[in-house]
């Protein structure tokens, strides 16, 4: 029961984080469309790092 609540909290946190990353990347691309490639690469790396953290927490909490 408690680990389900924990999993929910992790997903909420990861969701907020991913939303921030994606949203800011969109803003950046909208301001500077010529930098799309660089922004996308950086976005994917940061999203992957965040994902690793979230999965790690889910995995440890299981």
């Amino acid at each position: 029961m408690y680990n389900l609540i924990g999993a929910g909290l992790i997903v909420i946190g990861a969701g907020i984080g991913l939303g921030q990353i994606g949203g800011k990347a969109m803003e950046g691309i909208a301001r500077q469309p010529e930098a799309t490639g660089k922004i996308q690469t950086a976005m994917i790396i940061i999203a992957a790092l965040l994902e690793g953290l979230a999965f790690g927490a889910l995995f440890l909490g299981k």
Partner: protein
Amino acid sequence: MIILTMKGVQQSFKFLALLVLVLFSGSIYANTSNENEGQVDTKKEVEDYILHHIQDSHDFSLFSYTNDEGERKHVGFPLPIVIWTSQGLVSFISSEFHHNDDGHVIVEKNGLKFAKIHGKIYELEANASSVNFDEEHHAVNAHKVLDFSITKSVVGVLLVGILMFFAFTSLAKQYKKKAIPTGFGRVLEPLVLYVRDEIARPNIGEKHYRKFTGYLLTVFFFIWVLNLLGLTPMGFNVTGQLAVTACLAIFTLIIYTVSGNKDYWTHILWMPGVPVLIRPVLAIIELAGALLIKPFSLLVRLFANISAGHIVVMSLIAIMFTLKESLGVAGATGLSLVLSFFITLIEVLVAFLQAYIFTMLSALFIGMAVAEHEHDHNTSGH
């Protein structure tokens, strides 16, 4: 009554979505009311099937069915079991267990008795004739053995290894004769160039990237092809095995630890530009990051993404059975077909993305280890 405008189409989509939602909420009630009288617990069976698929297994089962006499028939082929027991190496074919997985079938080899319990092979004690369990369902008179079997995942790894060997040696041979490859090489060349120019070169740097491109290419294609193999109906789940992803992460760990230059190690062990008292604290954090957290995040990300993808696809396929009563056979099959089709398309994207991310982060970590700093630490604080 159908208005062929964009608005009309949008409205009918909304109506459809609402209909699906209503049907779904109705089905929950239908399921709870039917659960008591049904003789087969579909939900439990689906859960067992998905868990069985996620795990590695000692035989290659494609599908199974129950025939008219009520017998369970398995279609597939057995794989060799190689185990290290108390009396040395023992090998036999997994079909001797007759698809039994709860320890009831005992196989005798070299005077030793073996049983398979939840995918693990147990060796029975000398005088025991059957496996006894305690209250927590642990075997009391049997112990696990070292397992070197050619399991389903090992078959997958070998298959992809052989495939990649032939594909890439033939591609490499073509460059000796001509500058432009032909045939399947034309598909591989842009991918190889992509990994080299978009992943290795910008992340590792112009000076050192050539040395590591081979490893990055191998890892990229290995993970990508295995991910795609997992989407075929053959039931491979190789990159969803912790052992496989852990092994790949350890390769990356060894490579960036061994090739780390002096700058890298000074930044880890004795960070320049910060007060001396803080340096040991930073060293602990940096060491934990470099030796534990980086490989752990690499291995867990790949494992969790691929396993989650497989569970989602199989759960959506299972809608066919779980919603059969409330939607009818045609409705449930159609819904499951549409949903699993689209989620599989997303999984094709995820298969590439995870291979890309693993390669990209490996390149990034290697790049951190071999980067040469030109700035002066005495004047600029870090």
